[in-house]
């Protein structure tokens, strides 16, 4: 773009509108700023109020209502301003930045000072290991695979070293940066694909409606960093493909390679998805009907070259550093497929959507509407592409090929929603949406922009107002539904203790027990415990918790009936040879059913009955530890007991005929 043509574009009638000047007056900006500030303050206050109510109740409608009123006040006015046609692009970028920052509020306010989610404890531990030992790849008891992807932990440790902040403070700073960069990255990607500033900003706002945006990808976990790297890698990749000059291709290729290496080191699924999207793009730019144009061979060579480099990095990392990645990921897809097949044949037990959810009905219903709205907008996007091809505004070339490949990656969202019906596939499906929505928002953005313009062009004011209100309502519903489709309310809201919940199991008693244990026995002890107790012992306590599985069924220790030997026979010798020295028991296992359905890990046998109204499988089986010959109880609090495991068991145990001797007890404050 030359300076002259730039000026022509600026001064062209199409980019000037008399209403623009009226709306963009200093008075208009001042009013908008004051209104925005008011909405921001009120919105933040409402979100805080929602969380305050949530702290005192397990689940109530008012906490959801206050929260969503707050979010609407925080986000909808911002979205409205961003999407105004007359908003200058610099102000739009600033508003998007603001949007990214305030949309971090729900996760930040959820627990500003400490980890709250299951994965966060594991990542906290991994970072603490780097800071404590000075080494990478330290084994992680809570989620073993994360030890092989040290990107987030190394970055946090570097920030802790430089600033003197604690892990959580440094993590919060990084997460906020990644979150804001994700919003701006989506807008930048859409712009790199040839959309205007407004449509690109709309793509970013549509992306923010995906189920992972508010909570999952703002938690302290590797995906939160990797997805931002992925998006900006794609921006550089698109630049490399677009660049007409060899130098431009080379420089953007260097950027692509460095950032894709960062993604590979940080997160398996993001690396795999990046490779998949790059492969889609490479294929698309190799198809003559899509891409054949001048220099298209160079385009294809650049695309394939970068894809192969990324493939080599992903393959090498999977092969040499993280060989457990594929076995870790495959059950989400394979298991889900097989369960869906069984269900289709009528032999499987499907998953009830929102079965154990604490969300109100309107949140759940909104979640269904999101998929329907997304489908409608995606169809609109496809129609937009078709019209553009027909009228010659999307001719063969790189842009057409790129749009097709992003469209394809976005459309994967719809078949993936079927996996939500399968217990094994649901988690994988949910996790894929943060990635498929990149393509989906790029596909849907022009259709949504057309809708906005359609509303703007209505002659009657009441019609314009009605249509804009309807679009704002749709956005609000999509915001609610998208979030509800992601994490359960026990994750999203603070609240009182909830047995068997990953995000509400931490109590002062558990923290105190872990602190006592570490002070008494040090860190690095091999311990056996349940999932929720293990979160704290395995993270803040720096202990090594056993990972129960079919081949190492530590849950059988708890399940064994009193007086009956623990099966399988090799379990105790394995505990002994592996130097497991402590067993920790939460006595609520005997009385309560876990909120998320598992006591230990998803691998535990299904015969641990989880039906409501049925006594838990551990009922009446935990007191046996007080009399087992090879266990000594060294600690007890209201709910937790710590037993020392003295294996191998002594040949002669303690006598059951006690002496008639008297000792003496004394206590002093």
């Amino acid at each position, binding site marked *: 773009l030359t300076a002259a043509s730039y000026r022509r574009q600026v001064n062209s009638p199409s980019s000037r509108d008399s209403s623009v000047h009226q709306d963009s007056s200093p008075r208009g900006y001042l009013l908008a700023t004051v209104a925005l500030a008011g909405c921001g303050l009120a919105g933040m206050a409402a979100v805080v109020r929602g969380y305050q109510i949530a702290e005192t109740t397990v689940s109530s409608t008012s906490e959801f209502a206050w929260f969503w009123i707050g979010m609407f006040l925080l986000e909808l006015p911002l979205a409205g301003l961003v999407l105004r046609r007359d908003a200058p692009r610099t102000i739009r970028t600033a508003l998007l930045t603001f949007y990214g920052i305030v949309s971090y509020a729900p996760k930040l306010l959820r627990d500003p000072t400490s980890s709250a989610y299951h994965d966060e404890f594991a990542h906290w531990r991994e970072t603490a290991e780097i800071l404590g030992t000075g080494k990478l790849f330290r084994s992680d008891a809570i989620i073993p695979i994360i030890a092989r992807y040290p990107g987030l932990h190394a970055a946090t440790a570097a920030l802790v070293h430089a600033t003197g902040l604690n892990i959580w403070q440094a993590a919060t700073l990084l997460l906020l940066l990644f979150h804001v960069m994700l919003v701006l990255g989506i807008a930048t990607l859409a712009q790199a694909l040839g959309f205007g500033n407004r449509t690109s900003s709309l793509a970013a706002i549509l992306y923010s409606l995906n189920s992972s945006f508010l909570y999952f990808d703002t938690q302290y976990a590797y995906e939160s960093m990797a997805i931002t790297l992925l998006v900006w890698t794609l921006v550089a990749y698109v630049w490399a493909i677009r660049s007409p000059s060899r130098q431009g291709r080379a420089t953007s290729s260097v950027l692509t390679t460095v950032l894709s290496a960062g993604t590979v080191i940080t997160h398996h699924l993001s690396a795999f998805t990046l490779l998949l999207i790059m492969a889609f793009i490479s294929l698309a730019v190799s198809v003559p009907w899509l891409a054949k144009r001048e220099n298209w061979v160079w385009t294809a060579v650049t695309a394939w070259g970068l894809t192969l480099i990324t493939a080599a990095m992903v393959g090498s990392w999977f092969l040499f550093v993280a060989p457990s990645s594929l076995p870790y990921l495959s059950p989400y897809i394979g298991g889900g497929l097989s369960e869906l097949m069984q269900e289709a044949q009528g032999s499987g037990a499907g998953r009830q959507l929102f079965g154990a959810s604490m969300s109100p009905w309107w949140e759940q219903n909104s979640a269904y509407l999101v998929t329907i709205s997304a489908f409608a907008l995606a169809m609109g996007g496809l129609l937009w592409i078709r019209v553009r091809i027909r009228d010659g505004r999307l001719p063969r070339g790189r842009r057409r090929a790129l749009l097709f490949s992003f469209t394809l990656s976005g459309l994967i969202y719809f078949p993936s929603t079927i996996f939500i019906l399968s217990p094994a596939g649901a988690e994988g499906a949910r996790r894929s949406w943060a990635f498929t929505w990149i393509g989906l928002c790029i596909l849907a953005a022009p259709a949504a922009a057309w809708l906005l313009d359609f509303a703007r062009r209505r002659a009657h004011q009441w019609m314009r107002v009605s249509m804009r209100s309807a679009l704002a309502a749709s956005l609000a519903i999509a915001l609610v539904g998208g979030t509800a489709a992601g994490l359960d309310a026990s994750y999203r809201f603070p609240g009182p203790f909830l047995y068997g919940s990953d995000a509400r199991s931490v109590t002062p008693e558990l923290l105190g027990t872990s602190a006592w244990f570490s002070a008494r026995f040090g860190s690095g002890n091999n311990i056996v415990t349940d999932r929720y107790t293990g979160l704290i012992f395995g993270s803040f306590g720096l202990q090594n918790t056993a990972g129960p599985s079919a081949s190492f069924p530590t849950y059988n220790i708890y399940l064994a009936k009193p007086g009956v030997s623990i099966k399988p026979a090799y379990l105790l010798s394995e505990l002994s040879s592996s130097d497991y020295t402590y067993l920790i028991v939460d006595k609520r296992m005997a009385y309560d059913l876990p909120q998320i359905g598992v006591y230990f890990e998803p691998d535990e046998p299904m015969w641990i009955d989880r039906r409501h109204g049925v006594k838990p499988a551990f009922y009446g089986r935990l007191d046996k530890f007080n009399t087992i010959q090879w266990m000594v109880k060294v600690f007890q609090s*209201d709910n937790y007991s710590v037993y020392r495991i003295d294996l191998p068991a002594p040949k002669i145990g303690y006598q059951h005929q006690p002496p008639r001797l008297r000792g003496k007890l004394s206590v002093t404050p």
Partner: protein
Amino acid sequence: MTRTHVFVRQVTRLWLSAWPFWTLLVFASLAAVRLLPGGYARAAVAAPILLAVPGALTLGAVFSGHHRPRGVLFAGYAVLLSVVWSVFASLALYMLKVLITAESTYWCLLVVSALLTIAAEARLVPGRSQVGPRSVPEPGTLDPDWASAEADDGPPAAVRGAGYYAIGAVMAGLSLLAGGVYVQDHLPHPAPTGYTWMAWTGPRVNGAIAIGAAGAKLPFQIVHRQSHTTTFRLRATWLGAPSRLLAGPLTVSIGPEKTFHGVLFVPPPPNGCTYRIVVTLTAAQQVESQTKHPLTWSINADVHRLGKSPNTCGS
């Protein structure tokens, strides 16, 4: 033109003429910044340097002036590349078998930044004559494939103020977040649920505790993390069928947030057998919600007579 304007122009010219070098100096100053006490003050200085400089230098090293990203693109890539460099630095240190510490990370990143500075300075040399106002087109806008790109941008009249708007947005957003956290922190919260615990103290023992001829004292601790005083009954028993009283019972009242230290004197067992002793604490007026039994805490230990073989058990 005022003196201030002249000064600003000279500083700007000086900065642009060798910005990678000055940026490297800023990064090197992290060594001095580390002298500040760790926390928010040091973070306010160190975090922007760590999270911007290596990435900015990478952009300077990779892109020539005309093609270098600007504005949000520059800031975005600078931050992400800086983060990636900190990860690469840790990996390099690990592979070199150097412990990852504050010092080693700093030196590694400084070396990387120095190399990037050399490359960036080399890129600056041919372009020095063009130092001045930026008139760089956005990447790819010369591409004919993008002739059909959508042009729904708003009026670009505010381009000059881009940085100020972005900074304003960041400041406003951070203030709002900080305000939310502050208000939430200062609102009344439900009191945390209290609890009580009991544990052995004293030296760590594996297996049964050897009791000498004079007996042995086993220390333990009772910690009451409750907001109210509770009355307990404390007793020790020999575990068996039936169990027999070893010591106590004692009635103990423990106030809120109090710790009591207890000692159990165990007489020497009569033979070489191992016996299990149990110390039990029972709340006088509290019952468990599930079992409706009195709320009870206990710890146990195995003891045996020092110097007597287990083979003499039963004799």
